[in-house]
Structures are given as structure tokens and as C-alpha cells.
């Protein structure tokens, strides 16, 4: 459902130009949960912005459901790392979640109902009337996820979504993502620099090189579902996979299986 072919992006020009991505090819199947890992500064966010149509890549193309991405597509939602900046502080939580639904043919009542349903699915049924600043960081990120879910996108992009919360909250939110993908039919691309997280959450992990980024590894994650923070992480397959991804991120050779 997502096809990225020969994607390149250069910031600036001349000798000071920064080649963030070069010749990146990737395809994601419908319903897949793909994690993209790579060292920091690897052009992961540039990749995400290109997929979302927030920037125009300097080379190559991105297609979602066969359609070439030129502007921000209609069937896509993004969850950013920095929830405190991505949520609108002047709106109540419910209004934040309902706002993107104005793009759809829904009246006020339908938008409100959809927002409430999305908030319930992230465990924030009671928070609708509050303002984002009245919630903890983890709860704010739940609101951002609810906002994306309510929109019912075909593709949900998550840019380091748990990078700004504490470890306990991080685990809860990872499980939340696994849980909501069971209820909603959608494709998820989650960008992270956390190797364990990529293996724990993903159906498939793609490893990017340092900038200029291209794909250096593509691994299928075949761990039993439902996953569990304790038992999944102690399973030998998980341990093996995370080691493999870790070596790729550090630019070492893959060990023979």
C-alpha cells in the first residue's frame, strides 16, 4: 500500500548541502506494522515527512495506494514525538481529537461521537473536557494517538512517538499501539531509534544507514501474538532479533542464522 522508490532528499545546495536520503527503496504491505530504525541523524524524520507530503523530496517518488504523493494525502495521519507542540493548547482534548474530522463529511455530532470513541479506545474516556496541559505527557501522547485513530487513516505514521515519555509509560504506549491495530484496519509505519522497541512492536523491521539514508536491513519479526512486555522480551527469538537489528544499526555484518 506504500511504495517508496529511489527516494532522495538533499537540504540546501553546493558544498554545504546535506544529503539526508539517497536512493531509498521500500514497500509496505496493507495492514503491516513496519518499524524503521536507524542511528540518530539518519534522515528518519525526513523520510517520514516525505511520505506525509510535508516536504517535497528532491528525487524519487512516494506512492500510497498507488497514488503519487504530491501534497499531504487525505488518508494519512501522523503522530509526532513532541505531543506538547503537536496538540493545540487552546482546544479541549475532545476538540483536538475532533478537529481533523472536519476534513470528512461529518456533522458536529458525528465528529464529537467519533472523538469520544477514539478517546475511549486509548483509555481516556473521561478526559475530553480537559485541556492538554492538564494531562501528563503519556496521556497527551494518548490524545495524539486518539486524534490519529479518530481520523481512520489508511496509513498511520509515528515519528519517535514514545521518545519523550518515561520508560513505564513507553511500555504502556507500545502495548496501546499493538492493541489499537487489532481494532482498526490500518497500516502503521513507526519510526524509532530504540532497537528493542522496533522488534517488540513491529511485524517487520527496516534498518536505515547513516545519512544519506538507504535501507541496509529488512527483517521479518515472527514473534507470537499477543505480545507481552515480559515474556516476549525474554523469548530467545526476541533476543536474537534485537541483536541482529543492533548489529545492523551499528553497521556490523549480520551473523549467520
Amino acid at each position, binding site marked *: 500500500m506504500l511504495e517508496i522508490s529511489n527516494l532522495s532528499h538533499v537540504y540546501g545546495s553546493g558544498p554545504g548541502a546535506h544529503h539526508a536520503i539517497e536512493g531509498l527503496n521500500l514497500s509496505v504491505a496493507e495492514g503491516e506494522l513496519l518499524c524503521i530504525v536507524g542511528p540518530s541523524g539518519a534522515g528518519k524524520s525526513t523520510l517520514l515527512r516525505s511520505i506525509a507530503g510535508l516536504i517535497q523530496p528532491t528525487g524519487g517518488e512516494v506512492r500510497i495506494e498507488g497514488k503519487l504523493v504530491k501534497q499531504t494525502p487525505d488518508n*494519512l495521519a501522523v503522530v509526532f514525538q513532541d505531543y506538547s507542540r503537536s496538540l493545540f493548547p487552546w482546544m479541549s482534548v475532545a476538540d483536538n481529537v475532533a478537529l481533523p474530522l472536519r476534513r470528512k463529511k461529518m456533522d458536529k455530532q458525528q465528529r464529537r461521537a467519533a472523538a469520544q470513541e477514539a478517546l475511549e479506545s486509548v483509555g481516556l474516556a473521561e478526559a475530553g473536557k480537559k485541556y492538554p496541559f492538564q494531562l501528563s505527557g503519556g496521556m497527551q501522547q494518548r490524545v495524539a494517538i486518539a486524534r490519529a485513530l479518530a481520523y481512520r487513516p489508511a496509513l498511520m505514521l509515528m515519528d519517535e512517538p514514545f521518545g519523550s515519555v518515561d520508560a513505564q509509560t513507553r511500555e504502556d504506549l507500545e502495548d496501546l499501539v499493538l492493541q489499537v491495530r487489532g481494532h482498526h484496519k490500518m497500516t502503521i509505519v513507526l519510526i524509532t531509534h530504540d532497537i528493542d522497541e522496533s522488534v517488540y512492536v513491529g511485524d517487520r523491521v527496516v534498518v536505515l544507514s547513516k545519512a544519506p539514508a538507504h535501507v541496509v536491513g529488512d527483517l521479518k519479526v515472527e514473534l507470537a501474538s499477543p505480545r507481552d512486555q515480559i515474556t516476549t522480551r525474554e523469548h530467545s527469538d526476541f533476543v536474537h532479533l534485537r541483536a541482529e537489528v543492533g548489529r545492523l544499526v551499528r553497521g556490523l555484518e549480520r551473523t549467520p542464522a
Partner: protein
Amino acid sequence: MISARILRGVAGVAGFLIVGELTIRFGLTDDVVFPPPSLVLWEAMGLLADPVFLSGVAITLTNWALGLIASVVIAVPLGVLLGSLASVERATRPLLEFLRPIPSVAIIPLAILLIPVDSMMKVSVIVYASLWPVLINTLYGMHDVDPLAKESLRSFGFGAIDVLRRVSLPSAAPFMLTGVRIAAGIALILAVSAELLAGGTGGIGVFVIQAGSGNRTDLILAATFWAGIIGMVANSLLVLAERRLFHWHQARTGATT
């Protein structure tokens, strides 16, 4: 808490008045004729029953309100426009930086010569002076809009107009209101100054001139007292409005007072 603060404020004012009273009655030489606070306050109360003074206040306040409203109507859209179009702002910035620090009172003599209609002249100088704080604060607010907040809305497929309307304007609104509050004080200064310099049929400034020509320092101060009260009330009302309307902004910037 609040009552203790008010009590301290009242004590400060009362102390100041008593010290003033005693200094003027017993401390100064007989050569200096300065009305003691008790007399000024007495005259100020008397002015409340003086139809000439009251109609003057009405004239001054009308000019003040007209000027302030006109400046908001001009400066807010202008600020939004300049704030959205970086190239236009860069072109006009030097001109703004030159005009802004010119003391607005200095243009009153010019306005008297150029604008023959008295009330229009007065409103014009008020508009000119109030434009700057509203314009500069609107610009500042537009620059302060978080790029990630704009991207968040764009990522759902919203266009530039929607981003302006639903993100930039609400985000900049508290800055605009702060600009209006600063402008309200400046507008009152200009309203009275224009009357002092140009005279006219009535107004707080006109009343002061007439009191001066009769050597009534007590009446000058009594009228000035009411001008101060008006400025204080206007400021307090706008502070209250900022807190009511933009509590999210206070929470975000960590302002507590």
C-alpha cells in the same frame, strides 16, 4: 491570599496619601502652592457632579475607543499578513523599525496642520500611536506559532488557509490582546495630549487647560486623577480578559499573575 494582597496595596496607597498630605501641609514653604491630596480627592469627587467635566470625559473616551478600534482593525490584519509573508515583512521591516520609536506625541502638531476636522485629527493620532503595539505584538505572535503545530494540521490534509485560521490565528491571539492592552494605555495618553495641544470643545485635556488658565492646580490634579483611574480600569479589564480567554496560554508560558 488575594485579600491580603489587596490590603497591602490599599495600605501603600493610604500611606503615600498621608505622607503627601503631611509634607504639603507642614513640610513645604509657603512659596510653593501645591494642593494636598485631601483637597484633590475632594475636588475629584466634586467633578463627578460637574456636567462640563463629565461630557469632556465622554468626548475623550469616545475618541479613545474609536481610535483603539480603528487601530485594531488596521493592525491585526496587517500583522497577520506580514507575519505570513516573510518576503513582504523583510521589505517593510526597516520602515517599521524607523517609524515605531518616533514618539507619537511629536506628530500631533503635524496632524493639527494636516487634518482640519478636530475630532478626526484626534482620532487619527490615537490610531497612529496605537497601531505599533498591536502590529508588533501580532507579528510577534505570528512568529511564535509552532511550526510543528502547523505541520500537525497539514499532515491531516488541511491547506494553508485552514492552517492560518485554525492554528496561526488562535495561537497568536493572546499576543494580539496583549498588544491591544498596551495600545489602550498609549491611546489614552494620546487622547489627552491631543486635547492639551489642540484644545477643542471638550475633553479631559481641554478641561485641564481651562483649569490651568484659572490657576486651579487642584482641579488639574483632580481631572488627572480620573484619567489615571480610567487607564487603570481599562488595563485591569483587559488583563482579566486575557486570563479568561487565554488561560491555556498562561498555563503554557508558566505565567501565574
